[in-house]
């Protein structure tokens, strides 16, 4: 279903999902062309979580993300040019080239840390919530992380602290391992986690926890709206797990685009290679969102094409911007160690 909001914000969400998708597909292309080095992770297939979830936040809310942060930054209104510049290690990147893909973290959008250490942000997010609570202005902290993070001991420690101190923090777990390789359906979400469903773990700490379909932006939106309201009003932490099927392009360590996203693809996936067709038909939150927009009469396919075109143009401009940005001066290597 679609989020229960009016047409303009719906189209805005669609636009952001497309922006994320095209950004990542382009990024993969640039990497294959050898135009940047370093490891990176893409958000494709999880747009149905990040976009509706982040749309519900206030400007003063505080965000923490992981190595899989590009989508969160763009969902929050980040500039794809500055994001890409950071991934390229350029001076105009959000972190002036010092952070790179994993750590791009625009403070002006409320991001305090994107950590490449699995689980690293959860204690930090609880701390930001501690600060928010001490100010008492309804501000909340949000931790966006993957299912794997629950395997780190920092997480149960954080659940305990957040629960005991009723901290205003949203734990948003993006479980991209549904039907993951080697896992029986209904068995462990991750082959290396005995606590399943994952919601059992926060619940053991008396943190209300819900599992939802992460390909259904409407359900994500509705669930998060309720829970964010609760957190803001002082009810303490909440844990939401959104389940998505891992995008087949990211099954190896180095992503590959097997079927470039088009508006067309939402209605006809026959052009996609057979082994990935099912994913685009049944598990892609963006294509589903576009179909629902049309089915519900908000737009027709031509209008979607127009949005899509403007997004791809925006990406092209971003790519030019990023590559035009120079590397930082060498002197930059020795600044920012201390204030």
């Amino acid at each position: 279903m679609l989020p229960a909001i009016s047409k303009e914000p719906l189209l805005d969400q669609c636009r952001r999902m497309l922006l994320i998708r095209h950004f990542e597909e382009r990024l993969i292309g640039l990497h294959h062309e050898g135009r940047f080095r370093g490891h990176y992770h893409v958000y494709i297939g999880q747009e149905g979580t990040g976009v509706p979830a982040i749309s519900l936040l206030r400007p003063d809310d505080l965000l923490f993300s992981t190595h899989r942060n590009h989508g969160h930054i763009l969902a929050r209104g980040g500039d794809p040019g500055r994001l890409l510049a950071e991934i390229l290690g350029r001076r105009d990147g959000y972190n002036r080239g010092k952070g790179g893909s994993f750590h791009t973290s625009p403070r002006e959008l409320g991001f305090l840390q994107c950590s490449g250490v699995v689980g690293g942000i959860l204690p930090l997010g609880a701390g930001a919530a501690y600060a928010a609570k001490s100010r008492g202005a309804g501000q909340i902290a949000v931790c966006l992380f993957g299912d794997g993070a629950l395997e780190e001991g920092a997480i149960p420690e954080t659940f305990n602290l957040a629960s005991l101190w009723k901290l205003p923090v949203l734990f948003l777990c993006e479980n991209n391992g549904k039907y993951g390789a080697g896992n029986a359906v209904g068995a462990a979400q991750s082959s290396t986690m005995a606590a399943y469903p994952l919601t059992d773990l926060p619940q053991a700490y008396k943190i209300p926890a819900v599992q939802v379909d992460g390909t259904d932006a409407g359900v994500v939106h509705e669930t998060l709206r309720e829970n964010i309201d609760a957190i803001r009003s002082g009810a303490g932490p909440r844990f939401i797990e959104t389940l998505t099927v891992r995008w087949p392009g990211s099954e190896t360590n180095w992503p590959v685009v097997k079927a470039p996203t088009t508006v067309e693809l939402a209605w006809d996936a026959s052009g996609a290679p057979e082994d990935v067709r099912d994913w685009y038909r049944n598990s892609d939150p963006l294509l589903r969102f576009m179909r629902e927009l049309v089915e519900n009469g908000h737009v027709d396919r031509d209008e979607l094409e127009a949005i899509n075109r403007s997004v791809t143009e925006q990406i092209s401009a971003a790519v030019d911007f990023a590559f035009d940005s120079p590397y930082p001066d060498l002197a930059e290597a020795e600044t920012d160690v201390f204030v």
Partner: protein
Amino acid sequence: MRNLKYHEAKLEALRELMEEDERVHLIGGTFFSLSPHRLKFAAIEKAWPDRVAAPPISELGFCGLATGAAMAGLRPVVDVTTGSFLFEAWPQVVNEAANVLYMSGGQVRAPVVFHMLHGLRGGGAAQHSGSPQAMLWNCPGLEIVLPSSPRDVKGLLKAAVASDNPTVFVDHSNLFETEGPVPDGDRIPLGQADVKRPGADVTLIATSFTVQRALAVAEALASDGIDVEVVDPRTLVPFDLDTIMASVEKTGRVVIADETHQSCGVAAEIAARIAESGFDHLKGPIRRVATLDVPVPYSQPLEEYIGPSEERIARAVREATR
């Protein structure tokens, strides 16, 4: 100037910090270890119940929490009890707090203070006697503070909290009963070494509780005609090499006494810096008096044997001036 005991000066600093800045929160409360002075801390808990939190036994979680709170605008002072337990919080300290300013390209600050009591404390054995400051000096992005007198503990604690950087405040419970003058004033800027005793013959650099031992050795050797200058760096990061080099240029002889283990310890780094910048002034090898490279034994005579005892310091100073 008032004379205060070290524990009194420390308590005064904590109280003033709470009074002066409501962004200061205390997370954990064993600033006075198991000493009787811990009971006096109760008054602070009582006066500011919303700003003193008693966390679970989750050093990793609550050190990270304090760091996140700092990133979001507070000035938390978090207590991990013993230096050995900072190891529990290592990922949050060295991978998150130390890196955030740099990694973010200067966007995000984490003005958190990590407090602990380090070192040989009498029966702490291998798992309660940790001195993590040497390891931390190898991790850029953290300020490291080592007070050694009532004046220093007050002035440095206030400066550590005022600093916009993450700071590790490494205290020593053997100092609690030390008495000394404490000015009414205020912060001691980080990065200023202190000549604790002037002297002409040999530069004895010492840190933390070992400063007190160094002073005792200096007094004892004075009667043998050896005039020892005792220099206390007070902070390792930032490090005041100038004050130390001024002393080395004068004496040409150096002994470094410190309680971290010898290999890659605090004394190693100070020795390497002096040998780099002051090679031509040196009249002989730099001598290190560090904790021997063995885990800390429980048994009293063994524990005393491995530490930078007055006897070992005196021997090294005599050798250096021979």
